[in-house]
């Protein structure tokens, strides 16, 4: 996951995903991917809200490994 991801960007992306799904402009083909992405974004935000800076860094590292 991008290291530069901000809460704002994450939330915006989340809203975008919600909107896409709502307007059914998201295809079944990417539906799971979108949900996964939403899950990651939420996890990212929640972790970041609570974790120490070092922990956040660690999570970001892990996320990057996963998503690539």
């Amino acid at each position: 996951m991008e290291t530069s991801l901000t809460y704002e960007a994450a939330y915006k992306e989340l809203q975008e995903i919600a909107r896409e799904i709502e307007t059914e402009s998201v295809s079944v083909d990417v539906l799971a991917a979108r949900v996964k992405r939403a899950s990651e974004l939420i996890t990212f935000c929640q972790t970041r809200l609570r974790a120490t800076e070092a922990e956040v860094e660690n999570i970001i590292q892990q996320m990057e490994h996963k998503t690539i």
Partner: protein
Amino acid sequence: MPYVNTNPYITLSQLTAAIQGTIRNAFSGKSFWVVADITGHSYYPAKGFHFFDLVEKDPQTHQLTAKVQANAWSQGTLRIKEFERATGQRFGNDLHVLIKVAVEYHPLYGLKLSLQDIDTSFTKGQLEQQKQATLLRLVTECGDIVRKTADGYHTRNKSLQLQSVIQRIAVITSSSAAGFGDFKKSLKDNIHGYTFYMDNYFTTVQGEANVAQVCAQLDAIKASGKIYDTVVIIRGGGAQTDLLLFEKFEIGKAVAGFPIPIIAGIGHEINETITDLMAHTSVKTPTMAAEMIITHNRSFEDALLKEQRNIIIRMQQTVSGRQQQLTSLHAHIVNRSRDLLSGYKEGLSQCRQTIPQSARHLLLKQRSGMAQLSGQLLAKPGQVTASRLQELIHIRQNIQSFARKLLQQQQQELQHHATVIRILSPAALLKKGFAMVYHNGKVVTGASSLSTGDTITVQLADAAVHATITSKTIIDGNESDI
């Protein structure tokens, strides 16, 4: 020469007693509302006494025009405490006040004014006037960052958007302040387990003289190069008074134009300071500032969770909607395929019915046409010959009758000619009594050639007689003309 006291005298005590008596006579039991400035103030908390001077200055020259020592004993001190609570202003130097005093004289301590009451409203009005002046100055001198609006003041700092999450905080406070402790504890012990990163910018947050210090710390925050989500200004707690620092123009200006949203948690109950008015957000206590930050973050998390729920619900709806679409499409294709096939079947069976029917019908029609034709052919030739025969008979009759008619007619005509000729023949005429007269062998048709004595022969029907003319008479009448 020996000093000879020639002037009569009294002792100082006698004099002071006289003064005291006079003053007592003049002022005893009376008190006065006096407007004055306070200087040289000192307070003895143990005894609860205030000592100060009341002065009056010339408005133009600022030269002292009057000065009297004053004090406040237990009764006055009580009034002062009430005043401080009501105004949020510490009783002290440079305060312009309306106080009720009694005039006292003591042989040992001299003339003193004893504070009996202090007018809270007067000072409040004074402070308010100062505050309004400062605000006017901010609006006029810093128009780019401060604007008066219908419901207060709008500043550049207010227009800044708070980050969705406030985590990196710069705190301007006094290290020893109790409010700072409360703030830190509140953040640390938040029930949601949010993490915060805090940098402290310590300063003295009391006393008007520390304006420059506070401004310097704001500059230090700016200069730190760190990214902060907010700057929190917390006053060190303690007395509710001594807020004048935060009413200062310089701090107001710095706060209004500050590039990071400022949360003011100055800690007071009475009214908002200029700092409060200029800051992005203002709360009453440091603890409330911490709570506000936590609530802010919580609302972000709530929004996240709301989106998550939305996404989950919509995702499930989408999947089930797609499932329905697919099912209905499936049913549709199945039904339509069957319909299509039965339609094709129908068409085919119709062809199978109509073709034999039509073929039979066609043959039947041909057959009846043939019968009609052959009927015509059977009947007609007989009619043709019969009518020809009729024609022949007719023509024969014609020829017969017309030949007879022709001959008859010829006969009649011939008869007619015969009759005419018979009637006109000379023999017939003679028989009727006519006679022919001959002279010299020629028939005479007139008397001109005849003369008396001429011999003529008269031919009658049955004989010829000869005669001589004896006379001649010319007939001029026409009586016997036919």
